[in-house]
């Protein structure tokens, strides 16, 4: 009797688990999208939401992954940094998403970071940032400073012969850290302190007259001068307009920008800006079939013939494909399995090469320098001969040059100090 009962129980349990499994196999993989759809950052972030929806739609048309469909879960953190953390918690705890693609500003990433680490989520972050961070749960598909700022400065110094530098930025963490790195780097290269001018302006600054006039004055000292701009968001439009109006020609004082892409240029008449530079890892104008296909898909998806693509969109494209590959490789969407599987995964990028996920959760990228053209596009004038691996910890800051990050076992540490041999306070055994 009791044996029979046991068998019966066991059988029903088996049946239950089988039916459970088969349900699980048909369950969609939930993809959280954490981009602001309202507020100041909506201008940049809402297109990334659409990019993700498009990528998911295409993947589902192609049969999803592991026979499972992907289901987007869109939330709106409304450009409000603390709300980012709440929404991330909602995605991970309530919606139980398998992965999150999101954030733009560094401050919003910093706000989400503890939540993602606590709830063991996966976050793909698609924007160029200041580095000095490596988390077990975050994958940085945008550029670290050594994949954007440093090569751009090298180009100006070696190819253009710039001797005098204006570092102009918006007053927040990314420009300040980047400029600190650049200042140290320039001084290491023998640039005198007098030949570096640093200027910060508030978000959305619109009255550039005095600053542009200052730059003009600084640049008329007989040495070749360039502006390295980390000015963020829509403050760029009046800045460039003022440059044009005050007659600063790219041939006299070129401006190389790290935050100005096709999207930002679509808001201005670029006629007077021809020749000013930007450093990115992707330009819409890159002559490559994968890129043209992506643009065609994007134009079709948005229904707007003039829709532009930009660097963070490519980062999401790469990040999304890496995630899909990692899920295939792991055979499951389980967070820990994907986290291990994704290191070393290579997917094609849109510039004709491959992007590989490095053990420090950054990816390899080519660095391109483009000059602005009158149609709001960039023409590539220089690129690195091969891809550059992202460096989580800058080699040019005193506190961070001894740190490395490696999320493979046995090291498994985001801030390992190679001099002291310790993992930033974290025990190695962990």
């Amino acid at each position, binding site marked *: 009797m009791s044996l029979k009962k046991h068998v019966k129980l066991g059988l029903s349990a088996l049946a239950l688990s089988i039916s459970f499994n088969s349900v699980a196999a048909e369950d969609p993989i939930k993809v959280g999208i954490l981009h602001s759809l309202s507020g100041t950052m909506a201008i940049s972030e809402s297109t990334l939401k659409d990019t993700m929806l498009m990528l998911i739609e295409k993947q589902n048309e192609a049969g999803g992954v592991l026979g499972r469909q992907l289901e987007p879960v869109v939330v709106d953190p409304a450009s409000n940094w603390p709300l980012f953390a709440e929404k991330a918690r909602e995605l991970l705890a309530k919606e139980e998403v398998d992965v999150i693609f999101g954030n733009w500003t560094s401050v919003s990433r910093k706000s989400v970071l503890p939540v993602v680490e606590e709830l063991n989520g996966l976050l793909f972050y698609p924007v160029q940032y200041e580095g000095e961070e490596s988390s077990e749960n975050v994958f940085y598909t945008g550029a670290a400073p050594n994949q954007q700022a440093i090569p751009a400065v090298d180009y100006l110094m070696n190819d253009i012969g710039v001797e005098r530098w204006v570092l102009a930025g918006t007053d927040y963490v990314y420009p300040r850290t980047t400029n600190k790195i650049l200042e140290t780097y320039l001084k290491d290269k023998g640039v005198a302190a007098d030949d570096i001018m640093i200027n910060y*302006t508030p978000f959305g600054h619109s009255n550039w*007259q005095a600053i542009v006039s200052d730059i003009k*004055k600084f640049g008329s000292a007989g040495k070749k001068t360039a502006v390295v701009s980390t000015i963020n968001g829509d403050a760029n439009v009046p800045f460039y307009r003022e440059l044009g109006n005050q007659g600063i020609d790219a041939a006299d004082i070129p401006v190389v920008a790290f935050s100005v892409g096709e999207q930002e240029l679509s808001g201005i008449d670029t006629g007077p800006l021809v020749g000013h530079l930007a450093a990115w890892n992707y330009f819409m104008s890159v002559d490559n079939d994968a890129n043209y296909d992506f643009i065609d898909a994007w134009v079709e998806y948005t229904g707007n013939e003039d829709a532009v693509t930009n660097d963070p969109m490519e980062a999401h494209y790469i990040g999304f494909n890496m995630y899909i590959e990692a899920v295939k490789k792991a055979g499951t969407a389980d967070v820990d399995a994907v986290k291990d599987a994704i290191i070393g995964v290579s997917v094609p990028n849109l510039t004709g090469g491959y992007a590989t996920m490095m053990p420090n959760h950054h990816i390899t990228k080519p660095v391109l320098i483009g000059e602005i053209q009158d149609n709001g596009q960039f023409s590539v004038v220089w690129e690195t001969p091969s891809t550059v691996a992202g460096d989580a910890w800058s080699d040019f800051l005193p506190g961070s040059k001894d740190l490395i990050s490696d999320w493979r076992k046995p090291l498994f540490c985001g801030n390992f100090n190679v001099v002291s041999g310790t993992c930033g306070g974290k025990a190695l055994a962990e």
Partner: protein
Amino acid sequence: MGISRLLSHLLLACCVLWPGHALSQVEDTEAQQLLTALADSSFAEKKAVVNRIASSGDDRARYWLESFGANKLGRLEASGQFIIVLSNRGRNWTVEDALTRENLGEISRRDIDTIRVNNALRNELEGILSVIDLKSPDEDQRLTAARALKGSVSGTLAERLPELIEAEESASVSEALTEALAIYKVEEQGDIAAVATLSGSLNSEARAALQQAMRSDDVALAAAAAKAMDSIEQKLKLNRAAETLYFGLSLGSVLVLAAIGLAITFGVMGVINMAHGELIMLGAYTTWGMQQLLPGQPGLALLLSIPAGFLVAALAGIAIERSVIQHLKGRPLETLLATFGVSLILQQLVRTVISPLNRTVITPDWMSGSLMINEALSLTLNRLYVIGFALVVFAGLMLIMRKTRLGLDVRAVTQNRAMARSMGIKATKVDILTFGLGSGVAGLAGVALSQITNVGPNLGQSYIIDSFMVVVFGGVGNLWGTLLAGLSLGTINQLLEPWAGAVLAKILVLVLIILFIQKRPRGLFPQKGRAAEG
């Protein structure tokens, strides 16, 4: 099909075999060779090729080089045919044949390889083109070319310049050429006589040449250069002071424009309208809308948006007044919160209905660029227009408030509502009209702001604080106060900015206002008499 293709092949063969069409054209094979060399060489090698093309004497050389500089010279991937891109927007580009100038229609961007150009080459091209342009019959073109030559005169050109100067009819062109030659002589030959020519010049290339001469080992030359530099520095100081004043006035006029509508709704009526910034935004969006309705005529659209922006914002203002503010009369805190809500609604409405992205408002040609007073001082035109516009709007408002029946009614109602009503003035109607007027003026500010800042959902937010600041500083209820406060705050800000940086300058101005309000709580021009008590 087959026959037509055969024909076109025959035609092509004819063209290639036929000797040059006109005397000043090189043969197509040679042109093809030159352009191929340009396309296939590295940036460093392209420089030589560019010079070869310029010296080929072909009529089309200028066109090719100009297109190349503008990134519009390209090659078809399949056939290797050289083309000039006429329109490079979107995914299909309109192109024409570079040699025959035959229009080839629209071709997919995938099939076109543009020949890349960079800043260094563009610089070189500019020099070459200005040498070509020196022979142009058009005086303005010659002048631009002569000015561009300053600091980029080459040795061979320097030999030919004296005769060009001799032959030049226009005084300003020959003056510019003389200076260009003098810069070359100081830089390359250390010519003391040329230093005298440069004395008093405000050109930055001339200054660079003099600075170089000052470091020279030749004592006499260095002394002469130092003396010339001194006189230049004196002149520069004056020009820079004038420039700062201009910057201050222009920032001030923006503040006045943004604040003057508020001076009416807040200052005269006493309504704290947090949605004032969004009314400005509506005005700016009206400009954008007008430009969409009248494509290709940005100037006309801008002029038409002046009345249109006024109307749109005024109607929106009246709607806000009727739906929200009239029910909260005499409850300033509730009004503040309610209008803040309205401002958020308007912002999100624009985001949802139009787009979260900024819209491009085109600046008409007559408003872009700058008015060059001399080589060190030029006034940006868009700002100049905004200053003028601000003054006109101010004068108009003063006229309405002082000389019209509406103005009289407004003043009566604000001074003593009960008394005014008992005299037969319809207070509610006056409220509507006044609020409409103030809102409409905010719309006008939006039209002007669309020319200097971004047109996007956040436009209003960045001006609301500044507007309140100006009105409170100027004295609530006084239009003259608003004008003076706006202009002086703008000037103070611009004086502080080079010295303190943009962020600190703004903080300092705020601190200054707080201190000032402590001393004089009613602002620069306090209202006197009975109205002050109300």
